[in-house]
């Protein structure tokens, strides 16, 4: 029996139809067509399905869709601030070669976004810890670290420019 679940998704009110046993991940992908969030393992071991729920990064595979009722959910599709503009992390990932096959990228971008929101000037160790729940098999992580550092700088500089303008 499908229930209607109303939620706020990437800033907009949405509703999805979900049976009680369906994961948030499957409903985002199959009911709402938001396929940016990926299924790498379906058991919380890889982080490819990382989304924010009420501002917390979680594995969407380990949350039931019906639990999203009344909550705020953010996915990679909502990462870009507007229209043609990309988030500094997205730009940095492209610039630094931090994405090869791209399958882990949405999950890593979401975690990196969270990391930088909480810690705008992270050390190398803090970046590694912040991304330790996301598996990448293509890049060896090196360029992901470069991209996060680079984006952190860009965000800080943009913040300073805004402050002084």
């Amino acid at each position, binding site marked *: 029996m499908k229930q209607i679940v109303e939620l706020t998704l990437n800033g907009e009110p949405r509703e999805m139809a979900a049976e*009680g046993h369906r994961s948030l991940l499957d409903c985002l992908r199959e009911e709402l067509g938001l396929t940016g969030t990926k299924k790498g393992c379906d*058991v919380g071991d890889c982080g490819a399905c990382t989304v924010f729920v009420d501002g917390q990064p*979680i594995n969407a595979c*380990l949350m039931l869709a019906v639990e999203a009722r009344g909550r705020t959910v953010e996915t990679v599709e909502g990462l870009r601030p507007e229209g043609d503009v990309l988030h500094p992390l997205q730009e940095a990932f492209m610039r630094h070669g931090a994405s090869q096959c791209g399958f882990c990228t949405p999950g890593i971008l979401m975690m990196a976004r969270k990391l930088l929101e909480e810690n705008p000037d992270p050390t190398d160790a803090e970046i590694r810890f912040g991304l330790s729940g996301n598996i990448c098999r293509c890049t060896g992580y090196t360029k992901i670290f470069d991209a996060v550092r680079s984006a952190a700088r860009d965000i800080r500089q943009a913040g300073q420019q805004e402050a002084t303008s």
Partner: protein
Amino acid sequence: MRRFAYHEPATLEDASRLLTDLGDDAHVFAGGTDLLVEIRERLRRVSDVVNIKSIPGMSDITWDEATGLTFGALVTARQLETLRGVQETYPNFAEALRQLGSIQVRGRATVVGNICRASPSADTIPPLIADRAIIHIYSPRGMRRIPLAEFFTGPGRTVLARGEIATGIVVPPPARQSGRAYIKHGRRKAMELATVGVAVSLERDGDRCLEARIALGAVGPVVLRAAGAEAILKGADLTDETLARAGEAAMADCTPISNVRASADYRRNMVGVLTRRALRTAMEANA
């Protein structure tokens, strides 16, 4: 069964009744980071999940100097991990939290859920046992509380009867001169299941040990207290030699098995090494 029925009771009474009435394949659903995995991997038959996250009164975290730290069954690992108070007062517990699963998992996983899953390798259990935590349980016949050390009866098994629900944990305040540590042994630095977990809480008077509580994870059917090692330390001077002897004794206190993660011999060896290291860390810390 990949499909199951979903229930969201509003009170503990309703939840308890559902669990009793729906039978053995009905399970409490809190964080879901174990339960949903077991369903997907076909490790457990689940016909019904009872979501307890709408039940009020189990989401608080409080601290006072008399009682210590109290947190409810719905408090997540991430919530506790990020509290400065927990990091400073219970660094062993904080260290265990930091290593549980991943940040994403910790955003959902509840500590009480980790405890109730009762895996011998669970990270939160050794430090809480070493700090003499108490677990509060709701049952239809009334609330009860027992020392966490008495909660486990075997791998994956607890004293909880059908219809009972754990509602929270109380961790007594640390003694004045005490130190604590938790070391998790694994082959990589994150997303690991402990091959060995050692938690140490040490109460001292200068360089003399008043009491040591050493809890060992992943080396027995439940988390064990290293009684032999503790006996050596009680009242002893905290020298390198004492620490080494305590480490040796801890090796005899455990009953590890061999599996795909490690052999029994290696685990026993690591109990010795890590007990010594955890004791040293606990010594160098302060209350």
